[in-house]
């Protein structure tokens, strides 16, 4: 089970990012637990300066803007 956190205040792109992670995980057959982190202090605690951000198993892999589906698949497969 991969622990995925989507960091963002709840903007449209943050929601889209979370959906993309879920659909890519389904495609790959990787079980994931997605959590949306919306608290600004918590987001800043991960050391990013732009949202949405993606954290997989405690490691920040992405910050700022909608990621590409193939990148998400690569991060999930790693």
């Amino acid at each position, binding site marked *: 089970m991969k622990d995925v956190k989507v960091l963002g205040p709840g*903007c449209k792109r943050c929601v889209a990012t979370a959906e993309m992670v879920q659909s890519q995980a389904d495609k790959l057959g990787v079980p994931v637990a997605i959590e949306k982190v919306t608290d600004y202090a918590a987001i*800043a*605690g991960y*050391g*990013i300066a*732009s949202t949405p951000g993606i954290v997989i198993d405690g490691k920040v892999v992405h910050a*700022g*803007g909608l990621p590409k589906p193939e990148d998400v698949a690569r991060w999930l497969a790693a």
Partner: protein
Amino acid sequence: MSTTTVSCCKGNPPPVAPRTSEPSTVKWLAATAAALVLWGLAYSQLIPFSDWIVAQLPIDRASHLGDAVSFFAYDTPKVLMLLTLVVFAMGLVRSFFSPEKTRAMLAGKHEGVGNVLSAMLGILTPFCSCSAVPLFIGFVSAGIPLGVTFSFLIAAPMVNEVALGLLFALVGWKVALTYLAFGLGVAIVAGWVIGRLHLEHWLEEWVRNLRASAADLPPEQITVVDRIKAGLEAVNDIVGKVWIWIIAGIAVGAFIHGYVPSSLLAEIMGRGAWWSVPAAVLLGIPMYSNAAGIIPVVQALLAKGAALGTVLAFMMSVIALSLPEMIILRKVLSVKLIAVFIGVVGTGILAVGFLFNALYQ
């Protein structure tokens, strides 16, 4: 932040996956070059095109209505085309920057140099209003001085590609460059002044206590094709959102152009009326419009004899100081600090207005 950044994170270029080989790079470059040539050809035909449109309508070219219609028919395609080009170029350039990289560049910089660098990076870094708070906290928690952070936050919305592209298209490159220089100047000086005031204790408490080390993001490999795509995405996002405002703005501009007598504006907004600069700034603060809607009006006002400084002060005030931005920033700044922010930036804009009116007699 009131310019084109209404919805979330639209301006950010997509991060890009590393590629092993890119066989379509040549195709993309060729298509981009062809599109630029087509653009140039279409642009060179705009005057005949607009003359033809007006000739098709049952309107006397010399009448007020004919004047307004011809202004509208020429300016609308011209402005949209120039804006598309500028936004594409900026999208491409911005794919070289990110808030995280900018933060790394600013970390450890002192006030002064830091303010200058910060204001310039504010123009180049992809930024949107929804990212303002994470960016602010991200900067401050990484130890970047408050004043340096403010230089970024003032420059980012004020000197943006829509404002510059439209000024360039409608009023000319000299005014666009002047706007760029003075916008940077206001951001640098206002940020520096806020830093000198040492107002860190006016931040919300949880922001003050937060210390975070920068995330170690995996390096991105971005190809030329990805950068072109980032430019196209910027065009799609920004031009797709503001075109309606531009057309509305040009319509108002066309009305002013055709119907409002020059003497009236010269009297109200001309150089003689010293009070018009502060009035323009005060009027602009509560107004929330994007650059797209305001600049065609600006152009028409200038053509009718309004003073350049007054008009630029109005424009800066509308774009740089906006209520929605204040509401977003209230999450991290106390009301007192927001008041200081408005006061310092407003004073800077006022100075620009007066200076301009004095310089361009």
